[in-house]
């Protein structure tokens, strides 16, 4: 389980893992638990996964990004109980230049959302609970549509 953890994620630590003397640009994406969804007040989250497949799918996504762009990528997704403000996912990408670092980072988070078998249960302030279905949410559907575009070619 290299890409999944039940412990808090340190995005800065992840960025240090990809940094090298040849890196001119390092991008990080940090997904954080927010306190609202579709106008409802969220108090906490629980992530679960089909763990062996989720870890393998994360490895495939990292490897795709590293073969598509000249970058080094690290990815961690947290599982279990998370509080508001906790880091749910972190991605660090290092490249010689900013273009490939931004593009690969965006690719990895969009693919994670679409392909990795992880599920999210939201707990609301009114004591109700629901499994999240991103296919029924406008923001995530819009984000998914972005990945169907060809990648932006990076300027050096």
């Amino acid at each position, binding site marked *: 389980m290299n890409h999944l953890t039940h412990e808090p994620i340190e995005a800065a630590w992840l960025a240090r893992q990809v940094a090298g003397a040849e890196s001119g640009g390092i991008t990080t994406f940090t997904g954080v638990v927010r306190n609202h969804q579709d106008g409802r007040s969220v108090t906490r989250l629980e992530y679960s996964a089909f763990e062996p497949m989720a870890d393998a799918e994360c490895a495939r996504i990292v490897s795709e990004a590293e073969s598509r762009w000249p970058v080094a990528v690290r990815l961690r997704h947290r599982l279990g109980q998370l509080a508001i403000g906790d880091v749910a996912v972190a991605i660090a990408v290092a490249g010689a230049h900013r273009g490939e670092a931004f593009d690969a980072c965006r690719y990895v988070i969009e693919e994670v959302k679409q392909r990795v078998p*992880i599920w999210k249960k939201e707990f609301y302030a009114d004591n109700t609970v629901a499994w999240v279905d991103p296919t029924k949410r406008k923001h995530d559907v819009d984000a998914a549509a972005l990945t169907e575009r060809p990648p932006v070619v990076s300027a050096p």
Partner: protein
Amino acid sequence: MSSAPPPLRIRVLLFASYADLVSREEVEVLVPSPATVADVIARLRADVPGAHRLPDRPLAAVNQVHGRLTDPVADRDEVALLPPMAGG
């Protein structure tokens, strides 16, 4: 007269909202050979209490790799039914 081949024994895994619907995380399903992922799902929905509440065309993985409903299954394969994914 040839005898029919033995049925395929498929391990079906259910997660998250699907596990809640069926009140189980794992079910063994027997299907006549040859069979596809769709055949396994149809048998599951028909035979297992609560499983008719599953969608008839869910996302599925075969042996931990995303698959299609038309993919063939083999004896002892593991078919995972995946609710809409919500990582990130």
